[in-house]
């Protein structure tokens, strides 16, 4: 009986803690967005950087770009996550 009550209390506490964790994560992520992403984004905009290449094409140009691949992939490069 007491074990059942105890486990229900524990489950309830875990649910509250999970919600609390979600709110905490949201606050941290919003702060990261405002103070890490924000200033860089504003700076990039002030300097006119087109980070995603959104600007249109010139009349005679193509949207194909040279691909960033190597002719002979090697094991060292394949080990990298970048």
């Amino acid at each position, binding site marked *: 009986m007491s074990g059942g009550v105890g486990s229900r209390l524990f489950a309830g506490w875990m649910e509250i803690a999970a919600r609390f964790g979600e709110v905490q*994560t*949201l606050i941290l*992520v*919003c702060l*990261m*967005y405002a103070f890490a*992403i*924000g200033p*860089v*984004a*504003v700076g*990039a905009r002030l300097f006119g950087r087109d*980070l*995603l*290449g*959104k600007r*249109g*094409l010139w009349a005679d*140009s*193509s*949207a*194909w*770009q*040279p*691909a*960033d*691949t190597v*002719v*002979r*992939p*090697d*094991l060292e490069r*394949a*080990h*990298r*996550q*970048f």
Partner: protein
Amino acid sequence: MNILGLSCFYHDSAAALLRDGELVAAAHEERFTRKRHDASIPTEAVAYCLDEAGLTPEQIDHVVFYDKPLVKFERILLTYLATFPRSLPSFSKAIPIWLKEKLLVPKALSRELGFESDLLFAEHHQSHAASAFLPSPFEEAAILTVDGVGEWATATQGVGRGNHFELDREIRFPHSLGLLYSAFTYYLGFKVNSAEYKVMGAAPYGEPRFADLILEHLVDLREDGSFKLNMKYFAFDYGLTMTNKRFETLMGQPRREAESAMQDFHWDVAASVQKVTEEIMLRIVRDLHARTGMKNLCMAGGVALNCVANGRIVREGPFENLWVQPAAGDAGGALGAALFAHCCVHGQPRRFRMDHAYWGPEFDDATIRRFLDERKAPYETLSRDAMIAETARLMDEEQAVIGWFQGRMEWGPRSLGARSILADARNEENWKRVNLKIKFRESFRPFAPACLAERASEWFDTDRESPYMLLVSQVREGRHIPAVTHVDGSARLQTVTDSQPEFCDLIRAFETRTGCPVVINTSFNVRGEPIVCTPEDAYLCFMRTDMDVLVLGNQVLRKQDQPELVEDFDWREKYALD
């Protein structure tokens, strides 16, 4: 050398295992977990691959992941920088997942798989390109990959020769043909990364009256097939939706509510985006042919599953031959990554030619009978020939709809005669019956015909094989197969050879009885459910629907003989609609 390729985290996770360059096993995780488009680390698919190969984890030389996580993360961060401050909702959803799992791929893989191996990474479009060229029948070929987005690339071109290929050009995010198609999928009320094929199926009902509007306002298309999207109309770079209000204003109507009735407007929008997609693909392949001079073309990436566009490339494009990876979407990246490591990184010769798509689990008759006996499900075991003759008779004389379960499960999104629902294609009623009472899906969606390869050119306007249901052809005039003929007279053809011998012999037997070498072949599932994998999945699907007969190996089960299926939940709520 044993190489395990993996794709996961986005959609359609999968595993593929190579032994000395030969494919041993490949499967989608969704088939085991029963969650459609499951994106989780493919633990069950990996377990199956190891079991099929008789290997222990220690015997794996490399695990190869199908993209480069840090390059993808760079793209995501730059996208948030470029779209600040509108991207906050997307950022707050995506970043915790990235920090917890996607940035820690080695750790996440070893935790979930329960073993560590030498981990390699291939670029996303390298994986697609490898899956397209390396298992193809060509010694040299032009390569085209087109999808939503990988790291930065959304489309790449190149050339493959021998055991090597080079991708020399790409189009970069956010300019993406796959995302353009997905944006319209979203606008038409369908699920993104899942229901794009419904837009393709809806297109023949409409007129492409918005195609010029799309090309004038949304897509800046060039003669070489390259293009830029006008991002003022899209929200996928910053938001949680694909399109924005400006898009709706341009098109003239708000986004269609999911499950609401399709109006003429919606058919026309579907027809328009399909026409634009075909135009872009045709321009790309013409330019690619002019640049490379190759006579063969290999394709992969989600857009390569657009079989209507593929059909036009075959008919109107300059390439003599086309080969499309049957798992052209992200799942196929698992195979591509493994092949890339074997051939390109280790420089080993190409040893594997993919000439069929049956790389999943199979269950012998003894296992099937054990399951049926435990279930107390009445069945009849026949000889192989008698099973085939009886199934053909049931489809013809009784117009039965058959659940067909034979051999190894298919690799890729299509049912190709191993896990299929079959019916008589001559009976128009079967279209409605299978759609509404068995698959529980939209009535407009067409069914695919499976036709004996040697008869295909007599029944369809085609001069080549289409074993993976990736080419659309016109049904020849005078051939009456209304259950598989779309409103525009087209059909998503599968040509059948003896690579699935029971299926091939069944169609032969059906032709002997009826003179018709064509049957309806649709995936063995209901709407929202992954294709069945095990005898149990097949039995449950059979019992929950109006299917008449289930054929499991040589065991034949009739619906009227079965005890009532008692379940303490509504299975319709188990599968989210797509």
